[in-house]
């Protein structure tokens, strides 16, 4: 029996099957696994693709925000956003409905032409969304101004759209309108697209409104700074109109109203003292700044600085900064007066020294010894006066520059006072002035520069004598009265010199201790002397850590008071 039997055949098949079954099983398993893997891979790939596009879209967000953040006009920003969506999202059209001051605006951005039907349908969609958002249940159609950008109305144009995504345009709780994008086919079914559009739009709106807010705030800040400036500020735009003028400038130029002037009108107002028109035109053309000093306008000396306002090298206007020179002018005058006064004070003793010496030399044969003595004494006294003036000038210069120093040592201030008053007694007696000393008991030894304190006392006493003697008191009463006192306080001694002279007007009191004001406005300016005595007294007292001031005496006259700390 060599013929294979059917049983064999089945057996063989069985063997084959037995052999192949596990392999087939493995194969099928493998196939299934591969298919699953492919599916997963495909899914992943799809996700990846959409992810990439999503990321790509978001990557371009800063670009649009950069543009938007420079805009304060919402409409401009929405136009920009609509154009941006047309480029980045697969849509046929982006549009928005916006509430404006006098109604509603509807703008459509497309890449080509659209039919009237398309335009109407899109507008219905936007206004329906808007009504829904604001909770308007009426069916009334919102009447809008309509504009199409990027294309126009044409009956051969795009006639329909698929899928719509509408997003409310909000500013906080306020609904300003609706923004819609209309799909080409099923392009808007992807929820990510809606999310993308929403997010971009939100960012655009908030960036615009925030920027506007920031700008308004900054503008207010800037305006506040401008208005509070001591300098006047003007800005002429390229049409030569005055576009900005702060309060100080109004005051300087004598312009009170807010009318918009042009440069020639401003020239007229300043009345020829400054050729504003010529200067502004010159600066506008040359782009070079120009300054003018000491221009007399409306009773003030003003300095002007005209500056070109450049943006990208383009002149967009001319600004002017106006500074009031009058205070400096006043100070300059005071300095000049002071110098003239010092020169005068130096010349007086020099004239006497030179003249007296010449007299003695020329007339020595004719002169009696008494004559010679008179003129020699004049020379001596004038030389002493000269020395005193030079010392005062030096002291006041040191005080002014902060280099004035005192050397403190133990000082019996009560004794110093008694001794100085003793020295003055003969002098005051000869001038019919009573000099009274009034010192507290148990005055402590203080730390002070004795010589400098004596200088303060001398300055105050000589002033008191000068005014008590020269003042009205000589006409009203027989005798003047100067009272010098010392009071012991917790940490200081207070010393006062009171006279019954004519007193000091209030407006001068404040300035008495001021170097240059003194020279011009104090009553001392009518007297001889540099008027530096009080300036130096103040410098000395303050170098000790004390204070000096003046009060009215009762019933008349002045009291100069200064304090010296114990240490």
């Amino acid at each position, binding site marked *: 029996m060599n013929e294979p039997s059917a049983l064999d055949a089945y057996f063989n098949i069985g063997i084959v099957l037995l052999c192949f079954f596990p392999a087939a099983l493995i194969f099928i398993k493998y196939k299934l696994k591969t298919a699953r893997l492919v599916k997963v891979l495909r899914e992943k790939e799809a996700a990846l693709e959409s992810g990439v596009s999503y990321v790509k879209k978001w990557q371009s967000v800063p670009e649009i925000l950069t543009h938007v953040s420079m805009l304060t006009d919402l409409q401009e920003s929405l136009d920009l956003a609509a154009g941006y969506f047309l480029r980045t999202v697969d849509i046929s059209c982006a549009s928005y409905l916006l509430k404006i001051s006098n109604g509603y605006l509807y703008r459509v951005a497309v890449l080509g032409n659209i039919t009237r039907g398309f335009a109407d349908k899109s507008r219905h969609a936007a206004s329906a969304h808007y009504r829904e958002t604001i909770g308007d249940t009426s069916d009334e159609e919102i009447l809008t101004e309509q504009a199409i950008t990027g294309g126009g109305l044409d009956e051969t144009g795009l006639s329909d759209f698929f899928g719509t995504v509408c997003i409310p345009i909000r500013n906080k709780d306020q609904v300003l309108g609706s923004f819609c994008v209309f799909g080409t086919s099923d392009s808007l079914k992807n929820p990510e697209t809606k999310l993308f559009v929403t997010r971009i739009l939100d960012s655009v709106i908030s960036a615009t409104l925030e920027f506007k807010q920031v700008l308004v705030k900054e503008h207010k800040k800037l305006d506040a700074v401008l208005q509070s400036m001591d300098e006047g500020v003007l800005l002429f735009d390229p049409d030569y109109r005055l576009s900005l003028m702060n309060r100080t400038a109004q005051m300087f130029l004598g312009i009170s109203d807010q009318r918009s002037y042009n440069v020639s009108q401003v020239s007229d107002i300043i009345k020829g003292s400054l050729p504003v028109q010529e200067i502004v035109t010159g600066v506008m053309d040359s782009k070079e700044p120009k300054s003018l000093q000491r221009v007399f306008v409306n009773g003030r000396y003003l300095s002007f600085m005209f500056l070109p306002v450049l943006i990208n090298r383009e002149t967009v206007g001319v600004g002017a900064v106006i500074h009031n020179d009058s205070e400096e002018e006043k100070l300059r005058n005071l300095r000049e007066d002071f110098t003239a006064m010092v020169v005068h004070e130096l010349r007086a003793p020099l004239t*006497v020294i030179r003249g007296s010496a*010449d007299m003695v030399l020329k007339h020595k044969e004719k002169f009696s010894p008494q004559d010679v003595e008179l003129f020699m004494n*004049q020379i001596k006294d004038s030389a002493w006066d000269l020395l005193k003036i030079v010392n005062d000038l030096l002291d006041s210069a040191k005080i002014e520059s902060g280099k004035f120093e005192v050397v403190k040592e133990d000082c019996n201030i009560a004794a110093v006072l008694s001794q100085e008053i003793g020295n003055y007694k003969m002098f005051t007696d000869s001038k019919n002035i009573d000099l009274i000393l009034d010192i507290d008991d148990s005055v402590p030894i203080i730390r002070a520069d004795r010589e400098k304190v004596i200088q303060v006392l001398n300055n105050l006493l000589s002033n008191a004598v000068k005014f008590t003697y020269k003042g009205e008191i000589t006409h009203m009463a027989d005798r003047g009265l100067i009272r010098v006192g010392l009071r012991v306080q917790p940490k200081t001694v207070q010393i006062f010199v009171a006279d019954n002279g004519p007193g000091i007007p209030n407006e001068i009191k404040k300035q008495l201790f001021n170097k240059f004001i003194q020279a011009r406005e104090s009553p001392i300016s009518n007297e001889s002397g540099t008027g530096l005595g009080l300036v130096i007294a103040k410098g000395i007292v303050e170098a000790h850590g004390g204070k000096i001031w003046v009060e009215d005496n009762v019933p008349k006259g002045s009291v100069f008071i200064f304090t010296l700390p114990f240490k």
Partner: protein
Amino acid sequence: MKKKVLIVEDDMALFNMYSVELKIKGFDVLNVSDGLQAMSKAKDYAPDIILLDIMLPGMNGLNILTELKGDSQTVDIPVIMLTNYGSEDNVKKALENGAADYIMKYKILPSELSDKIEVVLGTSNDSDVRIAV
């Protein structure tokens, strides 16, 4: 007869110089140190010439000049202003208000004072002498 000079000057040292010098030169001299008395002395003393300081205590010499030139009794008395200020304004004002001349005190010696007075009084031998100040 001696020419009379009224000196209105508050600085006693200067006055001493001027008065001793002028007396030596044969003038009669009277001094007042304050502006208030200047006017009455100008009338009582009837000087031939007045030397008037511009800077006086409590009063400006220019005001006294105006007063002198506004009074028929004193209008013809020549006035020489005395000053140590180099202020052009004051000098100009003084000359406009009728001062015959002015003297910068620091520039002249007492011995030169009488020359200037004589030029103003027209008693100088050298009538061409102009007052240089």
